[in-house]
């Protein structure tokens, strides 16, 4: 898995903050405390399926 896609971020609609994920490890790395996305981390768009 390429490094760029290994770490991604998703916006949690409940908190309004981004969550950083390690897709290869299946691990939640951190929850952003401030507004806006993490710099340099791919944002994953929401899917319903």
């Amino acid at each position: 898995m390429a490094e760029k896609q290994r770490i991604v971020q998703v916006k949690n609609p409940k908190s309004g903050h981004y969550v950083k994920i390690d897709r290869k490890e299946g691990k939640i790395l951190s929850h952003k405390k401030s507004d806006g996305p993490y710099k340099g981390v791919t944002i994953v768009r929401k899917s319903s399926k």
Partner: protein
Amino acid sequence: MIYYNTNNDPVTQWINYNPRSCFLMTQLGGIRPLDLTEIIDRTKRILDDREIKLLDGNSEITGKDFLIKIWKLVMSVPMGVAIVTKTIKSSAIPNIFYEIGMMNTLGKDTIVIKCKHFKIPSDFIRTEYIEFDNETYDHKFNNYLDRVFDYSKYCVTMANNLTAKPILTLDYLRRAYLITGDADIKTKAEDIMSRESFDEHTLLMLKSAFEIK
């Protein structure tokens, strides 16, 4: 593990979940005040339009311990709506906030619908609420439901990106399925369950979450 609130033992039996449902927390017994009836009726109509079942403590007659019944209902739903007005019996209010606490602990979405002058206890300051108003209520409550369904999409997205950890993935899918009742989510979960190996207890808990007999 999920624990019973009466004996602290973990649940080891099939849980009857209610996907696409909402648990109503309000005064159930006694003479129901008119303003409360109006809010409940409006809420039920909006939920009906979205094919979401409204359940309350009287929805199932089991003849068993009332607190266990409430706990099982709380566990079975994706969300809960608490309705508090100045006119409801004061003895009902602690029960309502206790149930909100249970729901929050179990990771369920909750919202408080309150009349204008009702003061929410300070511990619930972070709990979302809507002040009932004839003109704007439908719009506000629909907005809340939109956000709950938006959260289900977040859960699916998280599940899709955490596949290296099947239990974590299934937990996100479980919550999305409980909100939407979407058959595609269930199929995805079934697929993971058929590929991975789980112990008997874990498999039972997972199968009940997705209503897989």
